């Protein structure tokens, strides 16, 4: 078996983990999230933090070397995301790197890649995927249209829950060039500048202090060079990119799961009632032990899925679905168990645990919840 497919961190991954862990200990905390919440900046994240991540090389971690990146895999990015996720750090790594750059690396023209990817690696340019239109994630439900017009296209429609869309410099807009909403075929991807005439955006502040954006596109004119990949075959790009996004987001969620679990177990060892530590009660012991099992299963599926995606394993799509479903369920469950075991203090704003539950809900619903991914899994397995 090759080292890459083994479900143990490689030496390089361990090094990335240690570096990120030190960085997070230094720079990220739930307190910094509280500050961000109070500031309510349109960007939705700390730009200084992003520059520091660029200096570490993480903003180009999965981008090919020829464009200034480190050309590592999702397995390495996953290690970074997991550590950041432990302290609920908000960064546009998933939106810019996995979703945005992911589309360009896969199907972008040489001009696109040369113009955009080096700036992404430097931390100077942010991307966002404008895909979703319905309240619940459903990537083929696209009514936004792109109409051929002379040498270019005119795009009309609206998008919602565009992750990091408030700060993005370029959007990858999923639009329909043929067919009806709900159909897999007929989708096309366009690279659209955030300042393009006819495009307006409205930041949406979410419960977990993350910022998304709603976009309105009315008569947005782009030239034919804005098209990414083949006309009408956008789903061929979108599907694998969304798998990578689901798995990367799962890695970030795993960090949240681990921190929620560890801080709650510690609370059970510290808190006293009836003159004893509450962790001595079997009613809580068994709950904590069951939770432990779910955590272990989550660790394994994240490792397995990221490696499968990196090696283009044929099983990667169904693993991605299983991974996002599992982490959606386990992170929600972790937030619920964490709060319940903390008791009264758990429902106060002063205690950090509530921030984890809020992040769990947002992450759960972003890019498909467990119900969506079970359905996708069943379809992939032909039942």
């Amino acid at each position, binding site marked *: 078996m090759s080292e890459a497919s083994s479900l*143990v961190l490689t030496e390089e991954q361990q090094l990335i983990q240690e570096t990120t862990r030190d960085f997070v200990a230094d720079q990220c905390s739930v307190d910094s999230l509280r500050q961000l919440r109070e500031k309510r900046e349109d960007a939705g994240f700390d730009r200084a933090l992003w520059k520091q991540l660029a200096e570490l090389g993480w903003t180009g971690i999965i981008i090919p070397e020829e464009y200034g990146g480190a050309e590592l895999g999702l397995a390495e990015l996953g290690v970074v995301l997991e550590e950041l996720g432990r302290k609920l750090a908000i960064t546009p790594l998933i939106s810019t790197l996995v979703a945005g750059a992911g589309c360009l690396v896969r199907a972008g023209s040489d001009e696109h890649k040369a113009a955009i990817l080096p700036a992404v690696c430097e931390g100077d340019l942010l991307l966002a995927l404008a895909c979703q239109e319905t309240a619940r994630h459903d990537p083929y439900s696209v009514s936004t249209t792109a109409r051929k017009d002379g040498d270019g296209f005119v795009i009309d429609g609206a998008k919602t829950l565009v992750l990091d869309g408030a700060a993005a410099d370029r959007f990858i807009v999923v639009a329909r060039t043929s067919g009806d909403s709900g159909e897999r075929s007929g989708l096309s991807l366009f690279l659209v500048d955030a300042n393009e005439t006819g495009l307006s955006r409205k930041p949406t502040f979410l419960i977990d202090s993350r910022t998304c954006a709603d976009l309105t596109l009315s008569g947005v004119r782009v030239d034919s060079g804005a098209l990414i990949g083949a006309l009408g075959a956008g789903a061929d790009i979108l599907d694998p990119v969304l798998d990578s996004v689901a798995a990367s987001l799962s890695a970030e969620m795993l960090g949240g799961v681990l921190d929620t679990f560890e801080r709650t177990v510690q609370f059970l060892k510290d808190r006293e009632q009836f003159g004893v530590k509450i962790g001595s009660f079997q009613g809580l012991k068994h709950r904590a*032990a069951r939770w432990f*099992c779910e955590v272990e*299963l989550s660790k394994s599926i994240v*490792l397995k899925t990221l490696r499968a995606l990196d090696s283009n394993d044929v099983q990667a799509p169904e693993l991605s679905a299983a991974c996002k479903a599992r982490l959606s369920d386990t992170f929600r469950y972790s937030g619920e168990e964490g709060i319940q075991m903390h008791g009264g203090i758990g429902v106060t704003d002063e205690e950090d645990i509530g921030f984890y539950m809020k992040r769990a809900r947002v992450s759960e619903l972003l890019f498909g919840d467990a119900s969506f991914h079970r359905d996708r899994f*069943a379809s992939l397995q032909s039942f």
Partner: protein
Amino acid sequence: MSALDTFRSETRSWLEENCPAAMRTPPEKTDTVWGGRRSTFPNEDAKIWLERCVEKGFTAPEWPTEYGGAGLSREEVRVLRSEMKALRCRPPIFNYGLLMLAPVLLEYGTDEQKAEHLPPIARGEIRWCQGYSEPGAGSDLAGLQCRAVRDGDEIVVNGQKIWTSDADVSDWIFCLVRTNTEVPKHDGISFLLFDMESKGVSVSPIPLISGASPFCQTFFDDVRVPARHLIGKENGGWTIAKRLLQHEREMLSESTAGARPTQKKTLVDVARESLEVPEGPLTDGVLRDELAQLYMDRLCYSATLERSRDQALAGIGPGPETSMFKLYLSELGQRNSDWRHRVVGARGLGWDGDGFDDEELQTTREWLYGKASTILGGTSEIQLNIIAKRVLGLPD
């Protein structure tokens, strides 16, 4: 070519040459070779396959050659396993002596005890059963009462065991007995081996909710055992008993109970037949959703087993994840057989006789028998206690 690569290619050639074609197909439950004095084989090939493995030391590849093993390193054993898996070779033998008793004999037995008991296990000549639970000592195993009193060079055993799997077809028993009643319960237990043909041993099988079962009640009436069959110190048996339980949990974690289907039809096949949906999405959306969940949980479980093995290979662990295997696999197996049984509907309600085919009857029996899996080998609740205490470090 590294030494390990050479070993791999030699092993592959040996397996290709020596493993009969019939032993390279997925085994049915009844194909298991248990060994022992009354050993039976499903066919001649199974016998040949066992004999060849015995000669090569491959029934116990990691043991020293003097005890009938092949003296392989951990890496070599892993190569052997992966080559056997690649060629779909069946395990030549499966029994509790090999998987539970032998590891503790290697750790705690004297040279004489190892020399006496290990080679017959490696050769599949003696089949062992486990004398642990008693009517009054289930989850509270250390509360066991089966009495053993020393009489010169012998130990006299009186008492009763229950849930002794395959006691009626086994040759020897590894048995926990109480040798001191004056001390705290954990400190008065000894680990004793004896022949089931000894005078005073009697066995009676226990019918379960699923019908006939491998479980037995086992009675000892003045059974005289040579004192040299005591493993470890007198009254020092609890440490050995606990270590053996770890090996048992390991065995139960890798069994076919939940991760791999024991029946020919997959759950999807069963659902398609029962719902009369030959293709396309299953028409019952709730069943479809439950099935996706089951398959996904299996994936997560097998990824966890894989991670644990990779860690062992990298010299890490065993990590805390191993303590969840028995708990999770037994529950997954129950969900699996419960789902299968619900989906077949009326076809799963027959007990015996005409009108129901073998597979349908088996579905019903497996659903019922599966209820034992979260009780035997330490109940789920005991597993949760172990995780809470040993892994999470929660206070008493």
